[in-house]
């Protein structure tokens, strides 16, 4: 039961039921009230009409001498005492003289309480009215009877009433019908509400089921949108976008893991095959030395790869300990260029420095890694004797680092994927010189973490341009 009330559908239905119940009850009560009032006033009107008919008939059988004057109190008293024969009254009044019960009855008393006229069909327990509301005429309901109680200024009083059991029963029936109808409408409303709530919640159910299928590993599935652009469709759209991004991230991660393991496979294979070869037979020390050197090269390659992977992992999830500090990109670039001078000499490449101060906030160690990756690329890839230009400048709101070489450049087809992890423009796995295929990916990640961007132009030599926010 508790679970039921946690369900949105059930709770919607519960509230809906309560509100609907309130509304239907209110409406039914109003209808009942109005009908009851209508009935009562109709009965009262009948009683008044009856009174008029009776008094007109009372005087019609023996007309007054002076027709135009209203009858005096005495005359009325006298007429009431001797109403005359029943036949002189219209047929609808005959019941007054015939006894029994039913129909409208009438009773009049004098001011001293003595009876003037009591109709034959009047109930036995009639007594002169004492007090009739605030005026001289009032209507009361006693049991099954409704009566008009009236006291004239002269002191004469009268009761005209009739049995209303039939009307009361009718009203009860009407009330019962109203209650039954209301209940039926309520139940029908509940059914409709249940259906509507289900219909409104169905997309959520679909979304939920799709999401759990996606979570279970089916990354290609997406929530089906009805293209009505309602709130649920918008939610579905947002979720689909999220799934797209997640799937892309997982795909990237998968490819990265596959690539990383692929890159590790080769050096491991080398070490395995070299050591197995070495152990197969006795050898000259020179041969052992060569095999060990090969193993070492393979191991160094693995070390470079593992280090690069670690750097990338750290850049992907920056640790909270590395607060940016104020530093000068020109100084950093100069330091790296000094470090790489031996490599430049080895490849007979001259480094031209155009370093003007470029202050910024960042992590000097990471920034140095950018310069090192870009510069060592520029020193290794172009043919010997090329020129490399290392430049730092500032603009109004950013600092620029530019590494340009006079080599053959990079074909346009490689440019879009150049910063991908493990992508190599020359296809050859030139790992012999410690290149892991991660240098540019690392540079791009670091630049991204510093809120900058990195661009490459491959025509007319290769130019890498890093733009970082000024500090």
């Amino acid at each position: 039961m508790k679970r039921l009330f946690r369900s949105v559908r059930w709770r919607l239905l519960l509230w809906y039921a309560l509100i609907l119940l309130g509304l239907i009850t209110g409406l039914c009560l109003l209808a009942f009230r109005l009908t009851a009032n209508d009935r009562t006033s109709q009965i009262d009107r009948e009683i008044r009409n009856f009174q008029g008919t009776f008094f007109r008939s009372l005087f019609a059988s023996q007309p007054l001498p002076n027709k135009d004057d209203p009858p005096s109190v005495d005359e009325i008293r006298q007429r009431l005492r001797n109403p005359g024969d029943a036949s002189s009254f219209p047929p609808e009044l005959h019941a007054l003289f015939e006894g029994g019960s039913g129909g409208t009855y009438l009773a009049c008393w004098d001011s001293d309480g003595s009876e003037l006229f009591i109709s034959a069909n009047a109930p036995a327990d009639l007594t002169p009215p004492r007090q009739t509301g605030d005026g001289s005429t009032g209507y009361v309901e006693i049991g099954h009877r409704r009566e008009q109680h009236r006291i004239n200024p002269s002191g004469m009083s009268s009761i005209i009433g009739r049995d209303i059991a039939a009307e009361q029963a009718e009203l009860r029936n009407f009330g019962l019908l109203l209650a039954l109808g209301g209940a039926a409408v309520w139940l029908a409303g509940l059914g409709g509400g249940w259906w509507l709530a289900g219909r409104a919640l169905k997309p959520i159910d679909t979304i939920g089921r799709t999401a759990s299928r996606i979570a279970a590993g089916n990354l290609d599935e997406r929530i089906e949108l009805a293209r009505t652009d309602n709130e649920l469709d918008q939610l579905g759209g947002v979720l689909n976008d999220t799934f797209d991004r997640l799937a892309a991230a997982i795909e990237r991660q998968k490819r990265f893991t596959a690539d990383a393991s692929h890159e590790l496979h080769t050096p491991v294979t080398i070490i395995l095959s070299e050591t197995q070869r070495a152990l197969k037979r006795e050898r000259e020390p020179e041969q052992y030395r060569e095999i060990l050197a090969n193993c070492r090269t393979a191991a160094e390659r693995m070390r470079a790869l593992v280090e690069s992977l670690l750097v990338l992992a750290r850049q992907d999830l920056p640790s909270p300990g590395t607060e940016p500090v104020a530093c000068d990109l020109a100084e950093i670039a100069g330091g790296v260029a000094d470090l790489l001078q031996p490599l430049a000499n080895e490849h007979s490449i001259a480094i031209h420095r155009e370093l003007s101060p470029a202050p910024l906030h960042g992590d000097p160690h990471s920034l140095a890694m950018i310069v090192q990756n870009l510069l060592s690329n520029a020193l290794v890839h172009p043919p010997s004797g090329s020129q490399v230009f290392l430049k730092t400048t500032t603009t109004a709101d950013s600092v620029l680092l530019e590494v340009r070489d006079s080599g053959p450049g990079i074909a346009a087809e490689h440019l879009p994927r150049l910063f991908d992890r493990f992508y190599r423009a020359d296809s050859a796995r030139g790992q012999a010189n410690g290149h892991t295929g991660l240098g540019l990916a690392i540079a791009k990640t670091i630049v991204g973490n510093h809120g900058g961007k990195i661009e490459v132009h491959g025509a007319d030599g290769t130019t890498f341009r890093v733009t970082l926010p000024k500090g």
Partner: protein
Amino acid sequence: MRLLVIEDDPLLRHSLTEGLREELYAVDSAADGDEGLVKALATDYDGIVLDGMLPGIDGWELLRRLRLEKATPVLMLTARDAVTDRIRGLDAGADDYLTKPFDFEELLARLRALIRRSSGRGSSLLEIDGIEIDTAARSVRRDGEIILLTPREYGLVEYLALHRGSVVSRTELYEHLFDETENTLSNLLDVHVSNVRKKLGPAFISTRRGHGYSIE
């Protein structure tokens, strides 16, 4: 037996070439797909060790083009342990595959099996007139007794035994016993043949003058 190793990584290429040479194969090597294809088409190798990821044309494409002309047994090396890569390789015409990193001994065993199968034999033991050749142990016995042969002599016997009944030309023998790095003297083959005859009996290898040699 002459093999071709097509592998772009210089260290791994070196290691495989040297390792196979020590196992008495004649081994050529190629550093990329284009060079590998040229060599594979030019020479009738007994087997090719082919890396899948190559600069130039990749391993799968190389295999497809090679299969248009030759049925040389090919063992593919795949770095990714992905089923699709292996299926691609086998469908393109590879006879077997190995996933990196692999065990060198396994590579040797698979190569032996590959060569054996391509010569139409199921067992690693060959028996000819009471002489037993064990291609796995690379040894020759007569009446249960090991007869010592030099690697080159063994290679000669094995090649002729695998092509038993057919005449093998001198050129073919040169092609399968010596690799591209060796500059052999033309009469070296005759020296080996005469040495084998001394050890296994003069009738073991017969000479078809003007055609070549054969083991009946």
